[in-house]
């Protein structure tokens, strides 16, 4: 690990360095999933691809939305829309911790001057029916990443196990760049012709979405859409695998999973609108989990999920 890495100067430079670093370590650098999700884990590249036996390595930025965390752009590090950087490798390599530490070096955290710790933190996602063991990684007392070995997703045991890294990009970047309020953070080159801060880009949207999430969104419609998404997810999974048009075996797992993601986000919005009581909350989470589980069940019946005609034949044999 070198101490000579130049400090990055902007938010986007940190993202670019992570992209370059993980690309150099053999990850497929994917793009964000084009739907509203609460965390990078919801991207099918993690949720679905951590299932089944096929090897997998991907890294991507995922814009994440947590409606209840909106603070109208006032809070120094809390927002309803923020970015996560997500790395998922299956099977988890033996040197994943070292790979991770290398990524800190790459973004200008000199590990010879900082105190990096792996502090116990078990991860669980009740909506995805998933859990894993790992740590939150501390740099000088601040949590900079989440490090998890997936044990179960959608109710399925993970075999092999995926290693998952999640970086909270804004917080990490603020730390590296020495910024106290997220809105003051340089987004692009601060010495460029048109320097833009994070606030130039997101302050107004934070205000708009905070108002929308807490007061604007029509709850009747959200409730209706939740029901629709739930029904659609189940309907899509109930199709006969044999597609009459192409004559192929096609399960509509990803389209169904899109509906599961949708339901999850609608639930988060309803929660922010304060229309879900404590007892109902559990019930909604359970409904989303049931969808995630059905999608997982279906995914392992596809080729990406490790299904092969031979194996299927043997199983029915």
């Amino acid at each position, binding site marked *: 690990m070198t101490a000579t890495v130049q400090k990055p100067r902007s938010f986007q430079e940190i993202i670019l360095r992570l992209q370059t670093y993980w690309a150099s370590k053999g990850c497929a650098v994917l793009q964000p999933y084009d739907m509203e999700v609460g965390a990078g884990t919801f991207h099918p590249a993690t949720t679905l691809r951590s299932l089944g036996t096929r090897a997998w390595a991907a890294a991507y930025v995922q814009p994440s939305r947590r409606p209840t965390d909106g603070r109208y752009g006032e809070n*120094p*590090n809390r927002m309803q829309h923020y970015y996560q950087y997500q790395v998922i490798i299956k*099977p*988890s*390599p*033996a040197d994943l*911790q070292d790979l991770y530490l290398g990524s800190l070096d790459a973004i200008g955290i000199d*590990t*010879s*001057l*900082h*105190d*990096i*710790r*792996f*502090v*116990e933190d*078990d991860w669980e996602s009740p909506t995805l029916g998933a859990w*894993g*063991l*790992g*740590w939150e990684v501390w*740099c*000088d*007392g*601040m949590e900079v990443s989440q490090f998890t*070995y997936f*044990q179960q997703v959608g109710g399925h045991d*993970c*075999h*092999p*196990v995926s*290693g998952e890294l999640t970086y909270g990009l804004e917080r990490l970047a603020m*730390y590296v760049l020495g910024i106290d309020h997220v809105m003051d953070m340089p987004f692009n080159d601060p010495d460029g012709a048109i320097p833009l801060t994070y606030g130039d880009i997101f302050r107004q949207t934070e205000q708009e979405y905070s108002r929308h999430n807490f007061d604007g969104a029509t709850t009747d419609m959200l409730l209706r859409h939740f029901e629709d998404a739930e029904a659609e997810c189940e309907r899509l999974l109930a199709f006969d695998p044999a597609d009459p048009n192409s004559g192929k075996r096609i399960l509509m797992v990803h389209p169904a999973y899109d509906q599961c993601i949708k339901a999850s986000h609608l639930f988060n919005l309803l929660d922010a609108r304060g229309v879900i009581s*404590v007892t109902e909350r559990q019930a909604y989470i359970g409904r989303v989990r049931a969808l995630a589980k059905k999608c997982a069940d279906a995914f392992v019946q596809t080729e990406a999920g490790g299904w092969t005609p031979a194996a299927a034949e043997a199983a029915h044999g």
Partner: protein
Amino acid sequence: MPDVLIELFSEEIPARMQTRAAEDLRKLVTDGLVEGGLTYAHARAFSTPRRLVLAIEGLSLESPTQHEDRKGPKVGAPQQALDGFLRSTGLTMEQLHVHEDKKGAFYVAHLHKPGRPAAAILAEVLDKTIRSFPWPKAMRWGAGSLRWVRPLHSILCLMVTEAGAEVVPFEIEGITAGNTTRGHRFMAPDAFAVTSFEDYAARLKRAFVILDTAERADMIEHETRNRAFALGLELVEDKGLLAEVAGLVEWPVVLVGDIGEQFLNLPPEVLQTSMREHQKFFSLRDPADGRIVRFVTVANRETADDGATILKGNQKVLAARLSDAKFFWENDLRVVANVGLSGMAEGLASVTFHNKLGSQKARIDRICALTREIAPLVGASPDLAHQAAEVAKADLRSAMVGEFPELQGTMGVYYARAAGLPDAVANACKAHYQPLGPSDAVPTEPVSVAVALADKIDTLTGFWAIDEKPTGSKDPFALRRAALGVIRLILGNAIRANLAAIFAKGYAGADAADLLSFFHDRLKVFLRDEGIRHDVIDACLAMPGNDDLTLLVTRARALQATLDTDDGTNLIQGFKRANNILIQAEQKDGVEYSFGADPKFAETDQERALFTALDTAEAAIAPAMQAEDFTAAMAAMAALRAPIDAFFTAVQINTDNAIVRRNRLNLLHRIRAICLGVADLTRIEG
């Protein structure tokens, strides 16, 4: 005798699991070795964030050879039986011996089970130990199926004799045991070989790893105290935090940092809790005013800038945390200033206490009413006590307690003072939760005592009413603790009250008699620790007014003290003798001998002396009992021992003279009546 060194090197083990895991490793491996026929002199286990280590001294070289003479079929038995015997022993016909007993000749197999080398046994034990290790939570990683707390990277397993160190041949799921380990993750990451436990520990230290958790904890504590002393400050003790931090570092480096000026006015409990819970910082206190003014963080490494970067980072994180705490504090104070503490409490209507027992608000209303009833019994003003009960739980709605639940009560005191409430009310906000455990202090301020009793009795009568009593080891609502709290509050403050009457004013529908008997069970456990026998308590429980715990315990203590004397023990014997004779006579004659004995029918001096002694005792006991002076009453009772003994020695009760006999039985009745008036001595054992 060889020594053994085992190291299981993994990714970071959760701090809270390390000590237990080291102990489990020691026990599982040594038990396995002993089961395998080996002996050892000594075994010690160690843990760091990345390793579990076991050092065994004086292991035997091999398990002993075992001899067995196994009896086989008779000579001349069918070939089939003989073949079976040969198969089971692995011998041939020629190797069998023929023995004879009175039933005739039979075959015997002389079996030798040779001893096995320690290394082979150790490898088996280690395999089993790793595969069945009792981690609270274990995981798989990569493509393997082995389970460990976090990925297991390497195993060091050496057997050390005078000839040198040898690696024990061992392999598990692709990990082969060797003689190498690694030092500190950042400061000395390279692998190195070791030759013995001493060599291992010394080389680890050179590689910036302190093997022994206790040594790491000592280093942290010692260095922290030194640094505090140099600054004229003192460390706020926190053993739990010390143990945790010692499990987070292999090379502890103590750094002292500043808490921003703008946060120093936060209550010390807030500073300490926020720093401990979020950052695992220790607090340094100014002994002059008790304020917390510095923090201590324990880094896991040395750096070229002597920790300056690390400290700066930690300070920044702390500032962000304390900004939140300051926001909560100021926000809560604003709420209190605007709507008062009772205004803050209003939101409790929307907080469920228990789905069958209503909201926190409903519960507080009940506690208020009950507090009013209890206040006069404990010398508190009913109005003041009611006021305290109303706001005692208001801080559950504060932002601060929302963030730090463990500050409940503590914040209430601050907010009550800020609201200008009387001290007695403010103090009750915290004290009414007390005593929290067997060693926690019992509140003594009358208002606090009244609210504390009402709070606990509402809980107990409530859960009794909905039939959610503790069973076996299950006590999810901590009802045993609540009952013990009531007992200690009553005894500690010498409160005179009839519990049954108070229960009747608690949550409606509780079975008061059943609850009282639960209290009596808890009381027995409590008094047992004081050296009061359960039969002594039973003897006192049988007396009227047994729901007045202060009276009950005064009586029990006096009776126990009496029984601890010679006179007391012998008196019991005399009482029992009198009682047994009476019972027999009463059963036989079908009458009760309670007509009053007459001294004029007394025939002996001993009889007359007993009459006099009983008169004296009665004269002393009656006023003493009236004054609830059980010690005096029991002393007077114990004084009967000599005359009763003398009476039984000299006098035959069952004489032929019916009048004399009846008179003597009536005399025994007086003994019984006097004694039973003090306590039910029939329940005393022995």
